[in-house]
């Protein structure tokens, strides 16, 4: 069960997945595939309220809170970014608010994806992570445990 694994453990596993690929093509194909398999985000969440301003593509993140855990869903109009959304959801969805807020999050930098997109320095990705952490901190404050 995903809920029982820590953020660090999931990141470690994903990093190992990417490490299996030797060429940039394989890494990107894997990422694109992750994007493709991301469950559809309900159209009602694909509005400006859920939109995160990136530089060229749009990202939508919707979160909800259940039994003390935070869940994320998301989408992007660009496939590679959607793969990154999928990665972040795998890492953060179903975790405790405090764990999400405190997570150092190294997975994307450790995938070996060379694009500027895949570095936390890039605005789009940073904005996405910031929003996910912000959502988590709001849920954390509303149900302190």
């Amino acid at each position: 069960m995903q809920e029982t694994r820590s953020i660090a453990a999931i990141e470690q596993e994903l990093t190992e997945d990417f490490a299996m690929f030797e060429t940039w093509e394989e890494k990107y194909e894997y990422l694109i595939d992750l994007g493709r398999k991301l469950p559809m985000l309900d159209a009602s969440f694909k509005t400006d309220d859920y939109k995160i301003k990136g530089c060229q593509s749009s990202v939508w993140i919707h979160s909800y809170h259940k039994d003390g855990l935070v869940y994320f869903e998301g989408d992007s109009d660009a496939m590679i970014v959607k793969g990154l959304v999928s990665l972040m959801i795998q890492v953060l969805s179903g975790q405790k608010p405090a764990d999400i807020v405190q997570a150092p999050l190294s997975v994307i930098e450790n995938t070996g994806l060379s694009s500027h997109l895949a570095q936390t320095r890039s605005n789009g990705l940073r904005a996405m992570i910031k929003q996910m952490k912000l959502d988590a901190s709001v849920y954390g404050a509303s149900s302190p445990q």
Partner: protein
Amino acid sequence: MMAESQSGYNVETIRNLFPILNRKVKGRDLIYFDNAATAQKPIQVIEALTHYYSHYNANIHRGLHTLADEATAAFEATRHSIQHFIGAAVPEEIIFTKGTTESINLVASAWGNTHLQKGDEIIISSLEHHANIVPWQMVAEARGAQLRVIPIDDNGVLDMEAFQNMLNEKTRFVSIVHASNALGVINPVEDIITLAHKFDALVLVDAAQSSVHLELDVQQLDCDFLVFSGHKIYGPTGTGILYGKKALLEMLPPYQGGGEMIKEVTFEKTTYNELPFKFEAGTPNIADFIALKPAVDFIQDIGKKNIHAHEDALLRYATEKLETIDGLHIRGNVANKVSVVSFTIDDIHPQDLAILLDNQGIAVRTGHHCAQPLMKRLGIVGTTRASFAAYNTFEEIDIFAQALNKSIKMLK
């Protein structure tokens, strides 16, 4: 692969002048197709910069010493070379700025704030770069004037009939891009100028994209202002040109106050320096303007016509190759274009393409190209744009087409 088609045009000799073209990106030879954003610099330009700083760095127009004399002479030599580059009557008509953006802001502010009245109209087009939209919006708002926009068809061609209907006695200024940076489409600026002048409206031509490709003669065009950026004509960044008819420039108030632009300063009153210095307050970008001259020389030595013929052949070759790709749509697919090919592909986001192409050592531009209203008009989020320069080759286009096909396969 096609053989070089221009007799006497030796692309290898030209490439050897550009050190950056030896670079590898992601383990491959760099293919630089983002020339509409900025052109690479030939060695003469790079050397002129280091030579200036190593041999005669000095402030200009004021010192009475050898270094200042040499620097002033070199700086003013660039003004003469730009004068000839665009066929201006006298060197005082060439004002040095930071870039196209500052040149437009200078005109919008100096002219607009002194001449625009409530209810006056300014005309721009749907093809404009934000640099030729926002300054006019700002001054129109401040002065109660109205901004009107010439519509285009789906291929980015101006609706000239709509333009003619738009002109009236309230039209005071027309600011128009010569060649669209997003699509490459060339506008009929000669006709626009003639028509606008019938209503005594002034015309500014944004030649940021055309200056490097097309022969320009401001006297023949009869434009009132013409602006462009040195960095797009193989010169350094931070060098902008504003051409203005002398009588107009003399009539306009200064844009900024400070040193260089004054004749005499007392606390009661300051008298301004003559042209072009009236518009060049403070220490200018001496080094970069000095190094702009070898960039102009580079173009003149090969001949703009010869470069244009080469680029045009590249454009046609690339267009043919791209048109065979399933689901690819060239935006602005018209005959009269500068060497820009802008396209969208069904169900593929331009950002994905840019990332995958970058991984194959190819630099293209994706996005809205600082022309959001144009993208909105075309109903797209952005395009992928490949733009060609003097040093690009047919082989590079072959590699680009292969890389593009590979990227599409990965994304579909």
